[in-house]
């Protein structure tokens, strides 16, 4: 008679358990799939695009007519506010490699990073796998135009690091101003993020 332990072993061999990373990837795929299903269908998007184009063309024609009647339309150039956060949006990057902490612990940096920056000067980090990195917060300091970042609390505690965040073309670049936490500094200083336009980018 086959006993319980033998059956457990047989099934374990036939169905190997998935790893933590498989679960994280599956979760990312699931969020992507649910968003995709919530989006309007291709046909609806097509007609919305046609309607938007038609509206835009009508607006251009209307402006041309107004201008041809002698109106002196002078486009106003908005004066940028000094504290305008031009980096607002959702950005991502895939990271790889390892870093060794002063205590000798090796941290695997293989992860998908998503950072959301808001116009009100707040922001958040979501790094998968969460078991290694967790979530984090960003807060904009308008006086210095720099961001205070709390992330990787497992290694850095609650101490914030200070970073400047700039745009270079379509990329977002983090530069460390001051960060006592070496693992976070290694992960973020010089890190380049791309704009997240499609959740498929996270699995890609």
């Amino acid at each position, binding site marked *: 008679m086959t006993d319980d332990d033998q059956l457990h072993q047989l099934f374990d061999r036939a169905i190997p358990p998935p790893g933590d990373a498989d*679960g994280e990837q599956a979760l990312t795929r699931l969020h992507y799939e*649910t968003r995709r*299903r919530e989006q309007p269908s291709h046909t609806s998007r097509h007609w919305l695009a046609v309607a938007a184009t038609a509206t835009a063309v009508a607006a251009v024609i209307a402006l041309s007519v107004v201008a041809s009647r002698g109106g002196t339309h002078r486009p106003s150039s908005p004066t940028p506010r000094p504290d305008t956060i031009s980096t607002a949006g959702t950005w991502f990057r895939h990271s790889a490699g390892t870093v060794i902490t002063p205590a000798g612990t090796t941290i695997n940096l293989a992860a998908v990073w998503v950072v959301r920056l808001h116009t009100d000067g707040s922001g958040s980090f979501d790094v998968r796998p969460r078991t290694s990195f967790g979530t984090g917060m960003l807060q904009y300091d308008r006086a210095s135009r720099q961001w205070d970042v709390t992330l990787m609390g497992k290694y850095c505690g609650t101490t914030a690091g200070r970073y400047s965040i700039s745009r270079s073309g379509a990329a977002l670049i983090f530069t460390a101003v001051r960060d006592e936490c070496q693992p976070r500094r290694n992960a973020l200083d010089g890190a380049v993020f791309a704009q997240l336009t499609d959740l498929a980018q996270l699995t890609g």
Partner: protein
Amino acid sequence: MRRTGGAQPNAATPVDTYDEFFLAEFAGVLRLCHGLLGDRARAEEVTQEAFIRVYTNWARIAGYDRPDAWVRRVAIRLALRVRDRDRRRWALEHAFSRDRAEPEVPSATDVLALTDRLPRNQRVAVLLRYVDDLSIPDIATVLGCSEGTARVHLHRGRQRLAELLEGGTA
């Protein structure tokens, strides 16, 4: 109860709570579906579909006593439906073929194929016990029956599977 520890509803961060629930239950549900379907890729599809159904109804399901049992019931139902559909398709494709190919007889070591020969409830009970490591009360909750009935399903399934594994594949 073995499960639901990290999956209590939290109105402040519902998505995070769902993520915790997903990460806690994903492996068990995936392995259960793999056992029912005998194929990892199909199992991943079914598992994803089951969790999407949880996600879209999370506000309600998070309040259940056993959301883990709920997602398993959904996954089992979906997996069995997929499996039945595959079998019907196979039967149709081979109904008029000249060679009348028969499905391969599983070897005594192919535990998944042998499990597939058990009656439905016995098969599910065996997989819940030996793949998903559930206790008898938990198996009863997932099957929606009494503990006594779950115990009978498991006992008969286990007995039959042992016979098949020892070579009595008739």
